[in-house]
């Protein structure tokens, strides 16, 4: 069994809108090894979520996966027939979404929504599926699993709903779980509870996951590896320990500096400028208008990802 669970090669997902082509994901490479948690980090609109949805091929119109490979457990998912792909969803790859309220069906009971995947995929009986759902609700630290099975989404709190969302993604014990900003819509206290839970689950179940977030401090708590995205491209990819100590790409550095720290005494730091329009990217390196280190060649040419060190890749002329 190879160590690599998921390998994305040159993935491009573009949206063909009436105003023009939006290159939401434009040639990214990414690897998730078995048992590893990879944090995919970047500002809103940089293509993180689209990357996640591309992996399980749930990009809807007018978006299209233009090229690339998504090799999961030996199969290129982009070449699979619909029926095989359907089996991979849920069974091979589970996904947890950002908005716990809107991503649960308001008119179906939690129990129904938890068990249906098991019933469909494994042809389990309803009773068996319910037993598994109860065990999993217990696992995600829901106090009264029995009542929760009978509840409707609107009767649960935000944190509870997200716990249900996590349980739902884990029902079929998938090899890989995609977390798409699972804590963003929650209060800070609830957020830390969910992060604790995820840490625990990771150890206990040996989860492999791709953790998508805009919040580096959240990624820092969970990820073994950090992949930073900017305007549809990966700009830095390194071990979490390394990147937090010594970020090489000016964008990563800017993100790290923007995390409020006690020494800042209430001042908030941010990266100057704003995320570029994906339909109208600046020539050369897309980050150059905001970059403190830019020089003339940054405006003309985009650097390829290059090795800076063992297991550390970065996309910048200046970063050594």
């Amino acid at each position, binding site marked *: 069994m190879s160590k690599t669970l998921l390998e994305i090669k040159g993935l491009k997902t573009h949206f063909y809108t009436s105003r023009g082509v939006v290159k939401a994901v434009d040639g990214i490479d990414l690897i998730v090894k078995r048992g590893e948690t990879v944090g995919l980090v970047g500002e809103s609109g940089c293509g993180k979520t689209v990357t996640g*949805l591309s992996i*399980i091929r*749930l990009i809807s119109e007018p978006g299209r996966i233009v090229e690339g490979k998504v090799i999961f457990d030996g199969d290129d998912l982009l070449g699979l027939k619909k029926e095989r792909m*359907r*089996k*991979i*969803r*849920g*069974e091979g790859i*589970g*996904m947890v*979404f950002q*908005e716990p309220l*809107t*991503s*649960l*069906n*308001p*008119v*179906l*009971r939690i129990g129904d929504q938890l068990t*249906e*995947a098991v019933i*469909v*995929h494994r042809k389990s009986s309803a009773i068996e599926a319910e037993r598994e759902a109860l065990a999993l609700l217990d696992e995600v630290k829901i106090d009264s699993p029995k009542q929760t099975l009978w509840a*409707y989404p*609107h*009767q649960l709190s935000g944190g509870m709903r997200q716990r249900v*969302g996590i349980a*739902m*993604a884990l*029902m*079929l014990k998938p090899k890989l779980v995609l977390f798409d900003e699972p804590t963003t819509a929650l209060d800070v206290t609830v957020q830390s509870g969910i992060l604790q839970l995820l840490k625990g689950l990771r150890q206990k179940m040996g989860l492999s996951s791709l953790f998508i977030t805009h919040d580096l401090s959240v990624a820092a708590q969970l990820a073994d590896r950090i992949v930073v995205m900017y305007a549809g491209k990966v700009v830095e990819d390194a071990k979490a320990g390394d990147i937090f100590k010594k970020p090489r790409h000016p964008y990563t550095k800017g993100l790290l500096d923007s995390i409020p720290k006690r020494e800042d005494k209430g001042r908030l730091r941010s990266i100057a400028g704003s995320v570029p329009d994906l339909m109208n990217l600046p020539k050369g390196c897309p980050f150059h208008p905001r970059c403190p280190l830019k020089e003339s060649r940054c405006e003309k040419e985009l650097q390829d990802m290059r090795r800076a060190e063992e297991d550390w890749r970065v996309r910048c002329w200046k970063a050594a």
Partner: protein
Amino acid sequence: MVRYIAKRLLLIAPMLIGISLITFIVMHLAPGDPTSMRYGLNPEVSGSARAELKKLYDLDKPVHIQYLLWAKRLARFDFGNSFLDDRPVMQKIVERLPATLLLNVCALAVILLIALPIGVSSAVRHGSLYDKVMTIIVFIGYATPTFWFALILMVVFGFMLGWFPISGLRPWYIEYYSSGRQVADLLWHLVLPVVAASFGGLAGISRYTKSSMLEVLRQDYIRTARAKGLPERKVIYKHALRNGLLPIVTILGFALPGLISGSFIFETIFAWPGMGRLGYEAIMQYDYPVVMGVGVIASMMTLIGILISDILYAFIDPRIRYK
């Protein structure tokens, strides 16, 4: 849930009062009165005879007093007697009600059986050739005046092709048939009126179903359902349809008055022995008690229809049920 229904029930009373008041006033605003119809142009009837007749029917009193007198009788479920033949209004309506209910229930069933699948499949195949063809058909249906459509149906299928009877419900010879043949004959008579009555609603409901389903298919929970690896059939019919039906249930409640008022037209065109035609004839003859009786029963039916749709709504949407 019980409180929800009780609240809806309580709302019916004031609405009924409002409806009857407006009907009463509008009817009296129309020029002429029951006496002018029969005696106004007759030189042999003297003015004093007319005045006496007016007094007999309380028509000489101010409108608001007349309304109160009518309401007082209604409180004892007395709808009064018809000015025309002096038979109790209630009896006349009860004779006609089954035919109207039959027509409307059949029309509603046809609308639902055809419009919902059209709406759902158009939403799922949004933008396809099928969807475009359906859109055109539906718009033609929507734009066609229903009374005209009814007449065309009569001409083509009743006259030219001679496939279906063009009027009536139970012809005189039906009593000589066996019971099985009686049912068949009844259905045969139903075809044209039901097609005509459901045609307009078909277009509207299928359109609403489509737009509501399109909206639902964009929702996050549909993506969640797909991410679980559910087959598309389950995603559409289990996850999307129940949510997509919510607005349709409400619209159905409001479509009911349309059907019932449509009855006035279709029943007259197809000589259907229903309440709608009774009401129409009563209006033409200034038969106030019958008009009011038909009005009250028709609005009761409408309000009950809306009540049923409210209850159905709560039945599918737990957010309303558990408040």
